């Protein structure tokens, strides 16, 4: 047992090293090449010690002062002023700053544009978690969407369900369409396909795990709860294409929370 733990520790350490390298390369690539310089457009902006509303204000940058934009975390942006002090300002405050051409920074930088409407916009990603019922069993699922337009998205979802006789997993890729994205309660339909694995419970008579292809049709409703939080309710109809004579039909209901970014 000791040995296996040691082996695992090694495995985890190497995973950390690899991820650290990846992180390292990605940050250096973005930090050096294109430093974003802007001049303050508002009368002044306040610099805080941390990316949060409660952190103390330690400095200000006045109108016309040159600032360098370093990075963003949630709705806060870290900047460096001309006298080399660093601090966090609200994204909304930065949107008014001007670039070298005298345009508002928010015109060129999508991240600074205020989210006026509630629908997902072109190029948005969405990640979320759902909880529900899959054919009478508890089920949880996690999904990620990419919105091509505010109508159309592709989705990759993975789910786990827990029954008295079997548990199982599925992975489904689907296309999703929102006919009325501007509605505050926006309906959607989805169509997809994937793979399902069924594992009968260990206390039953020895039965084999099965893997089957599935087709999924879904319908649902989504609404923005607050800021970039989305609440989503969904009904899916699964057709499990088994190797037996009959296909199995399974109904799935779920509700979940996701974030747009």
């Amino acid at each position, binding site marked *: 047992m000791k040995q296996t733990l040691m082996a*695992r520790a090694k495995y985890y350490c190497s995973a950390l090293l690899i991820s650290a390298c990846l992180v390292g390369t990605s940050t250096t690539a973005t930090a050096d090449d294109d430093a974003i310089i802007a001049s303050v457009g508002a009368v002044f902006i306040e610099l805080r010690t941390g990316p949060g509303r409660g952190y103390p204000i330690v400095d200000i940058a006045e109108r016309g002062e040159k600032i360098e934009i370093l990075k963003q975390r949630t709705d806060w942006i870290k900047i460096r002023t001309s006298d080399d002090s660093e601090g966090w300002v609200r994204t909304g405050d930065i949107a008014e700053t001007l670039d070298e051409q005298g*345009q508002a920074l928010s015109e060129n930088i999508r991240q600074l544009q205020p989210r006026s409407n509630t629908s997902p916009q072109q190029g948005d990603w969405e990640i979320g978690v759902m909880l529900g019922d899959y054919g009478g069993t508890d089920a949880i699922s996690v999904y990620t969407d990419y919105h091509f337009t505010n109508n159309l998205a592709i989705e990759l979802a993975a789910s786990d369900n827990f029954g008295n006789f079997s548990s199982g997993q599925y992975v489904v890729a689907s296309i999703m369409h929102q006919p009325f994205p501007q509605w505050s309660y926006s309906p959607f339909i989805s169509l997809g396909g994937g793979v399902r694995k069924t594992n009968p419970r260990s206390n039953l008579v020895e039965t084999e795990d099965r893997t089957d292809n599935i087709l999924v049709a879904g319908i649902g409703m989504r609404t923005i709860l607050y800021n970039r939080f989305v609440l989503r309710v969904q009904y899916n109809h699964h057709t499990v294409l088994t190797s037996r004579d009959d296909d199995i039909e399974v109904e799935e209901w779920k509700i979940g929370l996701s974030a747009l970014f």
Partner: protein
Amino acid sequence: MENRIKRFILAIGLINSLFIHNSFAADDAVQVVEPQLDRRTIKPDKIDTENFEIGLYAGMISIEDFDTSTLLGVRAAYHITEDFFFELGYGESEGGLTSFEELSGSSPLFTDEDREYSYYDLSLGWNILPGEVFIFDKYAFNSSLYLLGGVGNTTFAGDEWFTVNIGAGFRLLLTDAIAWHIGVRDHIFDRDTLGEEEATHNIEFNTGFTVFF
């Protein structure tokens, strides 16, 4: 035959029209007034975002009825706002002997494979007490106490169990990008491995480091 002639004439007409159009265009190219307009340069600027967090942790987990064991795990988080984040955690451990197995001295009831314990959690976190930590005169670190709650899967004793988890943690940002975590978490699931179905509480203590990117 007639068709061919028609096509030929059409083709000539088409080629002619192209030439005529081009010659007109060439005449227009002489500009009297140069426009005094600055071209707008559209830069695909992007601010480096650091909303994702990934890292490793180690700790102890008390697996109900099966002793307390070492735990290793990975966690990834996405910070949605300054208040809320999603977290995905995955951990592995190994259950020890049950009290019955130890006292009776008979052969173990579970195989080593069945004792392998792994879980994943999908949780929503709330930074309930953000703040700063001061160490001596020199150092100030941003920090946050957070609450976590979510659902997940536990694989233990040869089966998978729907698991609810609740917990709390403390995050200390050593730099903007590197954080140290310390936390406790309770994994609750109904298990019928020992005959009757019972709710089990599997309490974990962990500590680890994460990187924001």
